[in-house]
């Protein structure tokens, strides 16, 4: 098909033939132009898409430090030979790795290089009239012809009216009608790809100006939204500490409910944290029932309930009988039944510092596996502790985990038989240390909630971009771009020779619809005989 009108019904770049390789000796400008053509070709885009999918795979199989740093540490400990290589290849942070960024940035450059010229071409196409019919309509994918019993002008008027009612843009020529519709297909396509670029920008804005912090809050305690209050905090390069929303939150009570029976016994059923909060220091105190999926929204910042656990309350006395510690100590849950581990560090004890480490079991038993909880709620709260004395190492300036005891400079207390001293305490019970070194009493339990505070200014733009992408995608997949031509020539005696032919944007995908469309147009022109023929040759793209 050489006719201008039947040329590709698209402004997509022509990718039919293998792009020529770079000439052997090129000037820099030519080389740049050649490289640009390569980058913006469909093949390259396809290859980059593939690469993007493949590059994501290790991110799901190798533990990622941004998602689960604990598992990364475990992996490094288990594979000391492999870990440095993984580190070098950024396999622990795939999605922020330079090579991952290289792939998606190239993809987006390629995309932009494709979208811009296409937008220009589409802008022109939208303002242009449908082209005149090709000379030989029979060569089009769908074609039908017949002799009509009326003059050409009335046939063409009727055809133009019919095509307009089918939402075609119609041009009436002397001997023919040209019609085209489905411009929205390309509009949608461009919208989709532009929206993807917008999505990338929104994600970047969120990463640059957003922040995320998590904080552990024990019942009857609270925190204020300042950097110092957070246990962990991450933010983008453009984050400004002074712009933190000045709210304070207090956890009044945390209620939990677990499945009590059946094969899902112990599965969580409800977590509900009652908060008192002030959105600003001078604002009134309000209450909010914080639940999973129901964050508290404060001035564009959201507070989420993402975890919970137990903080057993201990009272420690030292060798002088003085109370040197009293309060709740958060323990970290290790399994679905909240078997929790933790430590109590008593810096102010004399003559030596005291340290306790062990388990908190909401429903405690001690079996062959050691101390373990058999149900996540407080049916039989038990604290199982061992005790140490010596130097806690907290004064050394090296940051320490509050969940671990550094026992290198400490001596473990032993019982009368010489075995390490261990006590399984129920609320109210006390473990007395040998040699009058003091005692620790398990007073009771409070719950704690882990709250996540997040602010992402790119969130709403990202949602808007995603919605535009979806809309564009649907338009580009479901709108059919079609051209229809009707030609009528006088055949003598008030009769005419009528031909209807049609062309689709993606012939292979729209041939049935196109055939139906032509059948409809033809029958509206009063012809009921042979239907249109559809050929498989000349598939268009």
């Amino acid at each position, binding site marked *: 098909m050489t006719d201008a009108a039947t040329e590709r019904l698209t402004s*997509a770049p022509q*990718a*039919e033939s293998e792009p020529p390789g770079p000439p052997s000796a090129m000037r820099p400008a030519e080389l740049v132009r050649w490289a640009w053509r390569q980058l913006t070709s*469909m*093949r390259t*885009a*396809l290859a980059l*898409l*593939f690469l993007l*999918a493949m590059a*994501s*795979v290790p*991110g*799901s*199989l190798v533990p*990622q430090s941004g*998602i*689960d740093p604990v*598992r990364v540490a475990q992996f490094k400990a288990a594979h000391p030979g492999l870990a440095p290589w993984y580190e070098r290849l950024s396999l622990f942070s795939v*999605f922020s790795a330079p090579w991952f960024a290289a792939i998606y940035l190239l993809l987006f450059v390629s995309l932009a290089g494709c979208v811009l010229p296409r937008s220009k071409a589409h802008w022109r196409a939208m303002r242009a009239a449908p082209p005149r019919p090709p000379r030989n309509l*029979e*060569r089009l994918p769908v*074609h039908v*012809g*017949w*002799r009509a019993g009326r003059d050409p002008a009335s046939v063409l008027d009727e055809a133009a009216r019919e095509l307009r009612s089918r939402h075609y843009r119609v041009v009436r020529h002397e001997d023919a009608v040209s019609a085209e519709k489905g411009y929205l297909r390309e509009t949608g396509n461009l919208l989709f790809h532009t929206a993807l670029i917008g999505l990338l920008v929104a994600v970047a804005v969120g990463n640059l100006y957003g922040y*995320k912090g998590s904080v552990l809050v024990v019942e009857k305690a609270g925190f204020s939204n300042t950097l110092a209050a957070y246990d962990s905090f991450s933010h983008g390069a453009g984050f400004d500490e002074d712009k933190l929303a000045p709210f304070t939150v207090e956890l009044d009570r945390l209620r939990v409910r677990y*499945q009590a029976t*059946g094969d*899902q016994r112990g*599965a*969580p*059923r*409800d977590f509900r944290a009652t908060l008192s909060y002030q959105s600003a220091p001078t604002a009134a105190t309000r209450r909010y029932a914080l*639940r*999973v*999926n129901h964050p508290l929204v404060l001035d564009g910042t*959201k507070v989420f309930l*993402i975890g919970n656990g137990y903080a057993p309350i201990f009272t420690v006395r030292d060798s002088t009988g003085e109370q040197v510690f009293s309060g709740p100590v958060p323990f970290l849950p290790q399994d679905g039944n909240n078997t929790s581990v933790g430590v109590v560090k008593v810096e102010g004890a004399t003559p030596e510092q005291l340290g306790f480490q062990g388990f908190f079991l909401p429903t405690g038993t001690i079996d062959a596996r050691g101390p373990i909880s058999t149900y996540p709620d407080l049916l039989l709260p038990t604290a199982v502790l061992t005790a140490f004395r010596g130097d806690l190492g907290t004064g050394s300036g090296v940051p320490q985990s509050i969940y671990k005891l550094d026992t290198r400079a400490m001596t473990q207390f032993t019982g009368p038989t010489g075995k390490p001293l261990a006590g399984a305490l129920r609320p109210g019970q006390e473990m007395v240390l040998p040699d009058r070194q003091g005692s620790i009493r398990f007073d009771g339990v409070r719950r704690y909630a882990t709250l*996540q*505070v997040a602010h*992402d200014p790119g969130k709403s733009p*990202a949602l808007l971009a*995603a*919605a535009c992408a*979806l809309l564009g*995608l*649907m338009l580009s*997949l479901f709108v059919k771009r079609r051209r229809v031509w009707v030609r009528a020539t006088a055949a003598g005696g008030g009769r005419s020779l009528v031909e209807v032919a049609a062309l689709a944007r993606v012939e292979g*995908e729209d*041939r*049935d619809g196109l055939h139906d469309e032509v059948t409809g147009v033809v029958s509206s022109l009063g012809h009921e*005989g*042979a239907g249109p*023929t*559809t*050929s*498989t*040759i000349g598939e268009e*793209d």
Partner: protein
Amino acid sequence: MAGETLAQLSNNLLYSSMAVYAGAMYCYAAEMAFAPRRQQTRAVPVAERSMATVARTPTAYDAAPRTAVDGGRAPAPPTGTHGTARADRVGRVGVALTVLAFALHLGAVVARGLSAGRAPWGNMFEFSTAGALAVTTVFLVLLARRDPRYPVRYLGLFVVGPVLLTLGLAVTVLYTDSEQLVPALKSVWLVIHVTAAIIASGILTLGFAQTICYLVQDRLERRGDGPAFMARFPSAAALDRAAYRMHAFAFPIWTFAVIAGAIWAENAWGRYWGWDPKETWAFITWVVYACYLHARATAGWRGRKAAYIALLGYGTFLFNYLVVNIFLVGLHSYAGVG
């Protein structure tokens, strides 16, 4: 009715539907076995060429007789042999049994939802059951359309087989009692996000089956030979188009499912995208199907190569459903398995 009674009813309905599905599967298999010899019917490439010729001869005016459009291969081959009639009859029984199995299956899903008082797709067992129901639903919708250009009964075995397999896996390995949800799943987005994922997976499964059929049929057409039952299948070109339609329909739904998931994640965890393994694989599936759609518009990638990409896409979907849920650690660990 008490929750437990309803849950028991649901299980009974599910087992009944599996028995009926098995019957339907035998019928579809028998329909293939009774198919007539190949030579009588398998001549589509030639027919296509002759049609094209018709289109270009001057006699296309008035006189040209109406030729069936390619892909409009009549559902039953026009041979009228004993074998064809028998195959057709047993195929119809297969469809009737599929409808019955669908009704029982639907009843099982509804009863499960009523017993728990929530959307019945809160764990892997329920997701599998609902996903299998979506596959049957899409198949029956296509059957009900009775579009002569897109016959689908030939797909029966390839639809009911995997459905039965999925249900078998669900009731044995994945089964969990009907209970309430973990707090993380108590959200209206469970209905929106997971429903979209289930619908998309149902359509993608049909597209996958059609793609396999296309690849087989395409090879046979090139060789001009093959088992008799393949002659009952549409031409490779028609299968390719049908598969494309499925994928093009499913892709925006999958996109929506991913977006809805992101909105939910933002509402539950404070970030809309965190490269959790489940999210990562949903993204990979999306990218691979995007590759497929692009490949169909790229010279040198249409046809078989694009079809292989579609198969790969379905592979990533299955990986996300089976491997990620059960074996990879992440925030989406709601399988309730183990």
